[in-house]
């Protein structure tokens, strides 16, 4: 078949699909990748190797990236000196460059601006970006990691044609409106209301911890359309234009001093009914499946970014001194460096295992929580080690000539403290593993809840 993944097919065109149909579709899409994949892989062995084609592609892209990296880019400058407006501009330009060169959306159908290849090529692109300039790409992580995959899998034809190309070519930046002030870890506890009225959803409520809301063009928004159903069944998934009247964004400054998050206040915001993804009541299902797919890809990409940090740490160990001797000569810090490397390798090969599973037709399940725990805790550990290695230099921030490696570690260290909180706390992840993977009983208070999630 010459039809590519996610291209409009008879059965989905113009039709609102059900949850089960959508899951089936996801499996079918992956099945096609798998079929192509089988031809490449050595059947006899578990194999971490890239195929020759993959390896050639990776080299080609790395060379392209090397030539095309924007001059103004530098990780600590981008992170610590650029305003959000500058970050948004640089990200859009970078994404546009990627798009024009044919490296954006490797696994998206060509009909929507993608390259019609497999997820494997996409991962190779993302890993390469992560190992050199992840900062530039991070600004688009909701766009590419959440919004576009959701629209591709769950969106109707109009939504796909409207939004996917603009995600891939750098026109749109998206943000994610899931968390609410009174929900916390209890994510389904969404109280933002959407009432259908004259072909619009009228939305009222408040979102919090919304990255990029201050620069985003659109928002993937979880709203409650039904207050009678059990908690997770009354939710719906909207695509909201951030320029609509009634949307107000207030930045939240976090402990790094920067404002990576925002509060979003929604007052009588009129979102056109066509902006509903799937059907009313499917919001939670849509949010959760996309999240699980994203995670399998994210781990390998994260590992690539962390490996760069470990290399930076190794370099730093040769320069920073204790009692006049480079830290790299000290067995204690050598152990830490090794441990950091080991844990990044765990994340990387865990990611490859998940990815392999995904490419071969498996659907990622609750064991994806391991990846969340691994990346967040590994990053925290690397940052702790680096700060210990820095000794008193751990105090000197970006902007001083005495700052080591541009003062990036101080930012990363503080930022990492949010990792075990954002995207589902470690406590929630361990509940998921305990209850949904190991089948341990729920505790009484949560077991007694009605929705029985």
């Amino acid at each position, binding site marked *: 078949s010459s039809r590519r993944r996610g291209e409009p097919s008879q059965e989905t065109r113009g039709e609102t699909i059900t949850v089960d149909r959508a899951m089936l579709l996801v499996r079918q899409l992956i099945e096609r990748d798998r079929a192509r994949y089988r031809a490449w892989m050595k059947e006899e062995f578990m194999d971490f190797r890239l195929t020759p084609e993959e390896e050639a592609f990776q080299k080609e892209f790395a060379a392209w990236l090397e030539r095309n990296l924007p001059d103004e880019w530098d990780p600590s400058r981008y992170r610590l000196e650029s305003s959000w407006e500058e970050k948004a501009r640089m990200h859009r330009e970078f994404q546009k460059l990627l798009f024009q060169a044919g490296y954006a959306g490797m696994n998206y159908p060509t009909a929507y601006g993608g390259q019609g290849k497999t997820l494997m090529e996409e991962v190779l692109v993302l890993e390469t970006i992560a190992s050199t300039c992840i900062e530039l790409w991070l600004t688009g992580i909701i766009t590419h990691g959440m919004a576009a995959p959701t629209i591709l899998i769950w969106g109707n034809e109009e939504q796909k044609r409207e939004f996917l190309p603009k995600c891939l070519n750098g026109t749109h930046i998206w943000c994610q409106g899931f*968390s609410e002030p009174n929900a*916390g*870890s*209890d994510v389904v506890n969404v109280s933002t209301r959407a009432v259908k009225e004259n072909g619009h959803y009228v939305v009222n409520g408040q979102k*919090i*911890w919304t990255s990029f809301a201050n620069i985003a063009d659109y928002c993937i928004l979880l709203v409650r359309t039904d207050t009678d159903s059990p908690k997770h069944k009354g939710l719906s998934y909207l695509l909201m234009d951030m320029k609509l009247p009634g949307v107000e964004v207030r930045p*939240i*400054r*976090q*402990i790094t*001093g920067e404002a990576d998050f925002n509060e979003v206040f929604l007052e009588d915001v009129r979102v056109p009914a066509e902006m509903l993804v799937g059907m009313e009541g499917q919001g939670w299902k849509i949010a959760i499946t996309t999240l699980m797919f994203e995670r399998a890809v994210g781990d390998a990409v994260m590992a690539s970014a962390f490996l760069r940090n470990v290399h930076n740490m190794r370099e730093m160990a040769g320069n*920073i*001194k*204790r*009692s*006049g001797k480079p*830290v790299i000569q000290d067995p*204690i810090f050598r152990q830490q460096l090794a441990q950091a490397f080991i844990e990044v390798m765990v994340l990387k090969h865990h990611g490859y295992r998940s990815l392999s599973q995904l490419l071969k037709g498996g659907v990622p399940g609750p064991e994806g929580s391991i990846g969340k725990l691994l990346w967040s805790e590994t990053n925290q550990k690397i940052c702790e080690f680096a*700060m*210990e290695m*820095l*000794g*008193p230099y*751990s*105090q*000197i*921030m*970006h*902007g*001083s000539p*005495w*700052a080591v490696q541009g*003062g990036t570690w*101080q930012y990363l260290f*503080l930022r990492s*403290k*949010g990792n*075990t*909180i*954002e995207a589902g*706390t*470690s*406590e929630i992840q*361990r509940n998921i593993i305990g209850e949904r993977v190991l089948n341990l009983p729920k*505790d009484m*208070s*949560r077991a007694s*809840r009605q929705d029985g999630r």
Partner: protein
Amino acid sequence: MDVRFSEEQVEIARQARRFLENECPIEYVRTMLEDERGFTDQIWRGMAEMGWMAMRMPEAYGGLAMGMTDLAVVLEEMGRALLPGPYFSTVLMAAEALLEAGNDSQKERYLPGIAQGETRGALALQEPDAGADPGYIQMKANPAGDGFSLSGTKLFVPDAQVADFLVVAARTREGQDPSDGISLFVVDTGTAGMSVSLLPTMDATRKLCAVDFKDVQVDPQGILGKPHQGWAALHRVLQRAQIGLCAENVGGAQRAMEIAVEYAKIRVQFDQPIGAYQAVKHRCARMFEEVESSRSLLYWAAWAQDQADPGEAALAVSAAKAYCSEVNRNVATSAIQVLGGTGFSWEHDIHLYLKRAKANEVALGDPVFHREQLVLMLTNG
């Protein structure tokens, strides 16, 4: 044996808590984050009136002749309040150095001013290649006339930007072992060739400076103690300053724990307060164990400094400095996790505790350094 506080100590603590709650609320701390001086004249005067500048000075200089145990009680409260400003640099570093090594005229010149809240000092010790080793002193002081000439760079000097004078440790000769050949000097900050620049630091409640010395002339009146043999005095000064950091750590960790526990009682998730879940409850219990344990070592170290032989005193300091540092860091980090998104916001105060904890952890020897010191002592003794 009696390991409880005397009634006098309990009263000192109570007064300190009251003063700091009034004069150093968290809004004051936040204002001082942005302030280059890092303190107001008003609070400084108040602290002098409380007698805090002179607790350990002899009565001859207007002091109260008290012990480290008493001072630790006050410092614990300062750590709890995240008190910004040059108290630590002036009282625990500069004044202690004068008390240990100064001659009568040097003490006379500086101590009464400190006691009255008019003079501030700092200790220029740490060097760029020293890492966490406060005893790694390579900056040269060369003989010049009947005095010395100082050249080089000192880093991480607490609150030098508001100091009237600096005590400087420098090497006047290469010794048999690293502690031999170190001399101490007292130099006014206006002296030609000295330049002080503020460093941008993560913990902005205690400012750190770089101090450059370029042929800074010190006359004989500026030599503190016997030339080449400054290490012994400096080592004693450092021990007290390290105990000071331990006390701040205990106070800070105590407060961070309280903040987390209070939040765990009121924040509801899945229909019950998060403190009811063992993941949070046991995390809080661990904080309590750690805070109480760090307090036990602090009390030992402060007591040993006042009462025990020098060997036990040094052992207790290194044990406490290694342990209390890690406890404060762990508790502050753990508190952020309990607080969740709230604890990750700039608006909430908990990050100020984490940042001070990290600063205290690496100041005057980090845990790795102090554990190594301990083994040196345990295997020689």
